[in-house]
């Protein structure tokens, strides 16, 4: 290993340690690590910029703009109350419908945004039913991570994979991931209902109160609702057609976002730019530059060739290794830096002679997204909901989460493993 590769590796590992320790904000750590990669001459500025995936960033920013405006209309609260009335406020049925709303929402919106939209109405309905909100909140966490796996825009790992592998379209993600995610959802929901069944009881009188709710009052601005839902729908249609339109997903998302800003008026401009999670965007930038140091110094290709030697280049072993490694890694650390490192590694495996990379990409996606359910620190949505829940007087401790999260992760990854084997490897 040359000096540059050694410095790049040390910088990368140090950055990782600081990210995991959470002593300093991950964005500051990633950006400083990236700056050091340039200062130490591992990559020059031009090379670093070349490695930043602007499609991932554009897609994230575009969707954040569209969702932040749509959220202002009250439509998500409307849907939740409407669904609660449809199941007549029965607590177990409510757990299922709130989980499904979260899963579907997360498959098209950012996971954190989705849980932030469903959590307030969950507290509200649970209070009216006089049941603990914790079973609902935990199910919503799990389902946001599971649902987000079903599409290319649902979870950052998929956004990154979709952006890096041009041959995989938006439709490819749905046709390859949605079927297994549906199966995972059924099994995980059965497990959660079984675990929480004793806590989910409500009397007829309080259930009647749910039936009396007026969901229409939740819609705060009908004109804005029509505009934002139309743009959101057209943007999703655009994602389905992005390959035939020869457009990148970021172009579609940003186009939709700025059309929405055009028709809603300048008053929303300041508002949405405050709502964009710039810390996440810069975290991505830092990671792309950090990984570029590993790519340019040949570390990634060395690890790829070592992995191929270990597995003998055998597709089944490599797929399962990536699936389980990604799942366990994502339970402990942020899946974004992990996937940022794995993408060039899998690409290098392709250059070294592995011909069918598709099962490896799906293994990476399923492992990295579903692994986030294992531990409280596995995904941003977990931490956000647990934080909110604790603040409101319903603590979800690390151990409490783990006791349910680890089985959820193992059930999900086992189902994914069987699916990958049956669909791609025999």
């Amino acid at each position: 290993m040359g000096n540059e590769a050694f410095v790049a590796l040390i910088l990368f590992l140090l950055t990782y340690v600081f990210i995991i320790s959470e002593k300093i904000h991950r964005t500051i750590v990633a950006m400083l690590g990236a700056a050091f990669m340039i200062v130490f001459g591992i990559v020059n500025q031009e090379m670093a910029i070349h490695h930043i995936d602007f499609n991932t960033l554009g897609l994230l920013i575009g969707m954040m703009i569209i969702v932040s405006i749509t959220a202002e209309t009250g439509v998500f609260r409307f849907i939740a109350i409407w669904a609660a009335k449809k199941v007549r406020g029965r607590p177990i049925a409510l757990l299922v419908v709130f989980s499904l709303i979260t899963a579907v929402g997360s498959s098209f919106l950012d996971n954190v945004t989705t849980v932030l939209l469903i959590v307030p109405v969950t507290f509200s309905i649970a209070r009216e039913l006089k049941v603990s909100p914790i079973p609902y909140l935990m199910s919503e966490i799990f389902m946001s991570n599971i649902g987000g796996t079903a599409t290319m825009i649902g979870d950052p790992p998929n956004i990154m994979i979709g952006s890096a592998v041009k041959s995989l379209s938006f439709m490819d993600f749905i046709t390859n991931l949605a079927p297994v995610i549906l199966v995972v959802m059924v099994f995980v929901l059965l497990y959660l209902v079984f675990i929480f069944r004793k806590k989910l009881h409500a009397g007829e009188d309080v259930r009647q109160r749910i039936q009396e709710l007026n969901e229409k009052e939740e819609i705060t601005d009908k004109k804005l609702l029509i505009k934002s839902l139309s743009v959101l729908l057209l943007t999703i249609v655009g994602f389905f057609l992005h390959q035939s339109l020869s457009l990148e997903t970021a172009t579609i998302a940003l186009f939709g976002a700025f059309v929405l800003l055009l028709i809603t008026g300048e008053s929303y401009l300041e508002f949405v730019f405050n709502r964009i999670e710039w810390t996440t965007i810069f975290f991505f930038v830092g990671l792309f530059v950090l990984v570029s140091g590993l790519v340019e110094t040949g570390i990634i290709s060395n690890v790829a060739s070592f992995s191929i030697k270990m597995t003998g280049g055998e597709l089944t072993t490599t797929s399962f290794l990536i699936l389980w490694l990604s799942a366990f890694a994502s339970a402990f650390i942020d899946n974004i830096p992990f996937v940022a490192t794995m993408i060039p590694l899998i690409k290098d495996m392709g250059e070294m002679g592995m011909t069918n990379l598709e099962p490896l990409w799906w293994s990476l996606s399923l492992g990295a997204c579903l692994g986030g359910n294992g531990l409280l620190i596995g995904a941003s949505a977990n931490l956000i909901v647990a934080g909110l829940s604790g603040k409101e007087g319903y603590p979800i401790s690390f151990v409490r989460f783990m006791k349910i999260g680890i089985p959820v992760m193992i059930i999900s990854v086992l189902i994914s493993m069987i699916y990958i084997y049956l669909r791609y490897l025999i």
Partner: protein
Amino acid sequence: MKDLNYEIDHSMIDLEERQNDDDIEFLIHLKTEESLKRIRHIREFYESDKVYTDIYFYPRANHRYQVIVKYEGYVSFLLKLFQFKLLKSISWK
């Protein structure tokens, strides 16, 4: 609450107060479009602070709202109703 007096503006609302477990529940009938608009503003105020369990607003049919307030938020909620002129007066006993 026994140490607070308030006078309802009956041209705008009817209000009924009762205990709901450890919290206090208000059933409010909003008699005019204006009073409905004002209760929406009050709700917006409480929901913008990102504290989700201090007060709950449940809109119901026929211009009725059910509001569940934690004991600590009781006075503050009544003051808000007063500020939006849904109460005529409020005073300590």
